[in-house]
């Protein structure tokens, strides 16, 4: 409301007649108040991250004394050493394996089907697209139980197949949708020109359209990675043996089921920091692409 008075004189010469200085100082004050408020807010949002980092370098004695200090007495990396003694390297390998396979297969099949929807006019395209979108509102819990029974018959329980095989088919409705949205901004003419030149449809998909879709493919790649990396529901249902665990399941196990190993919050937080490192790197490297991707999916969609 403070800015109200300004807009009441939209064209007038009020600026030139001495109000200028007062206005400038007022603007400065308003700006400083804003910066101060923003800084306080930012502090609040940085707080959990700082908490996690600081807690992770505490000793066990520090982390279990009452009251626990916010700042550690020194830099102690023992908790990181310890989590790796607890099979963490194995959980990491398992999770990386799943995530990387998912990236390859999901990007391929999602882009394949997105190309089909966006560039090939075949009969049944509309209904198929509608069905695909409708699966977005299907709760995972509905298919979980029959899939468990089915996978049990395949001998897939306590293996990584449930994480890998289903993802090879379609690659996720939301990813397909995002690529289609992006392809709208990719000129069709290139594709059509290539068709006249006699390029087959698969070649047009690989050589003409996909290279232009790299920005959105990066976005979904990061999303697929983060999805696989942080997935807790699937391992909770399908995994039983410790050696098969993913990181999310490993942390859960160590915190609640395995009991003592992670009883200390410094260990939990070290595991948390470790699990955040790759997503954080991905975010910092691909920041621009990610914001762009969000824009395509959620804002223009």
């Amino acid at each position, binding site marked *: 409301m403070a800015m109200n008075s300004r807009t009441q004189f939209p064209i007038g010469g009020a600026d030139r007649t001495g109000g200028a200085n007062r206005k400038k100082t007022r603007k400065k004050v308003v700006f400083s108040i804003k910066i101060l408020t923003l800084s306080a807010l930012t502090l609040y949002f940085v707080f959990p991250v700082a908490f996690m980092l600081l807690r992770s370098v505490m000793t066990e004695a520090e982390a*279990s004394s009452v009251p626990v200090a916010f700042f550690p007495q020194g830099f102690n990396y023992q908790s990181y050493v310890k989590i790796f003694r607890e099979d963490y390297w194995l959980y990491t390998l398992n999770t990386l394996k799943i995530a990387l396979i998912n990236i390859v297969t999901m990007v391929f099949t999602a882009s394949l089907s997105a190309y089909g929807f966006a560039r090939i006019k075949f009969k049944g395209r509309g209904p198929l697209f509608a069905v695909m979108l409708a699966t977005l509102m299907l709760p995972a*819990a509905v298919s979980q139980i029959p899939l*468990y029974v089915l996978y049990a018959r395949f001998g897939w329980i306590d293996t990584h197949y449930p994480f890998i095989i289903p993802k090879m088919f379609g*690659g996720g409705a939301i990813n397909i949708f995002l690529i289609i949205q992006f392809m709208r901004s990719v000129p069709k003419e290139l594709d059509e020109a290539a068709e006249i030149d006699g390029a087959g449809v698969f070649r047009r998909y690989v050589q003409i359209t996909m290279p232009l879709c790299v920005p959105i493919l990066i976005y979904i790649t990061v999303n697929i990675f983060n999805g696989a990396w942080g997935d807790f529901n699937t391992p909770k249902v399908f995994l039983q043996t410790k050696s098969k665990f993913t990181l999310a399941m490993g942390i859960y196990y160590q915190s*609640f089921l395995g009991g003592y190993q992670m009883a200390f919050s410094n260990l939990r937080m070290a595991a948390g920091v470790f*699990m955040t490192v790759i997503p954080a790197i991905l975010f910092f490297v691909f920041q621009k692409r990610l914001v762009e991707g969000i824009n395509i999916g959620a804002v223009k969609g």
Partner: protein
Amino acid sequence: MNIELCAPPAREAKRRRLTRGARRQLAGILFELPLILGLIIFTAYPVAESLRLSLYRYNGFDTNVFNGFNNFKYMFANESQVKEVLRVFGNTFIYCFVSVPLSLFLSYFLAMPLNKNFKGVGVFRLLIYLPVIIPSVVSALLYKDIFDVTYGVMNQIFGGLGLPQGTFFSHRSTAMATLIWAGMWNLGGGMILWLSAFKNIPASLYESAKIDGANPLRRTLAITLPMSTPMIFYNLVMNLINSMQIFNSMMITGGDGEGPEQSLYFIAVKIYNEAFQFFRMGYAAALSWILFLVVGLLTVVVFATSKWVFYGDE
């Protein structure tokens, strides 16, 4: 006369188009083949099978008896079960209908001051976004530790501010509120969405509104919000569907996943428990179908009342 003249070329074109059309049809189906197979094997089959299972008494191994509508009757007629089902759905609804609109609302006020270009605005945005980068399983653990009654840091802060000590996740009266509060550390996600939405609004709209003498409030209500409705709508739908299925709460509650006096017991966790802890898979399937219907209904309602969404030129 005319017709006859036109006929031969038209027929020829038609024939050529037909073969090309058939080729195109084949290509389309081949490109969609993985998706079609996936939809059949990993969606349609389990959904149908789940409906069938909901009519059976099935423990996942040997017992597999047709049970009629007894699973549903049990859900709605058995006294303790009714209570529990109502509680898990109640919890899920509260979580869903408070946290989703609240975060959309609050993140707007976070995005507003950051929508201008001044020195350091990028740093503010980045730092506010930071908690969103943390995988949700990790943030659940993190919240659990921050809000731990004895070892947690929040009670120290409360003490320092002269506030009474909180019970947070450890008491039924505060557990849900704490969970929703903790979730608000992810407002940075909503902030980015609002900022993107703001960016897509042509500046000319604001300029002409200014010339017409519209004040900032008026400009917000008449330009910013209507132009952001596609974003609001998309996020409302996606976040409602997702938060109806909240499952990571198990990272906070541990063990049975219920929380103090079932105050953090959500429907997806109950379905998991019924199916994989108590091996009442038929009953769990019935519950999952109820969840499906609720989510479906919710989506339909949101879409049916989406007249307020403004799609510009479309």
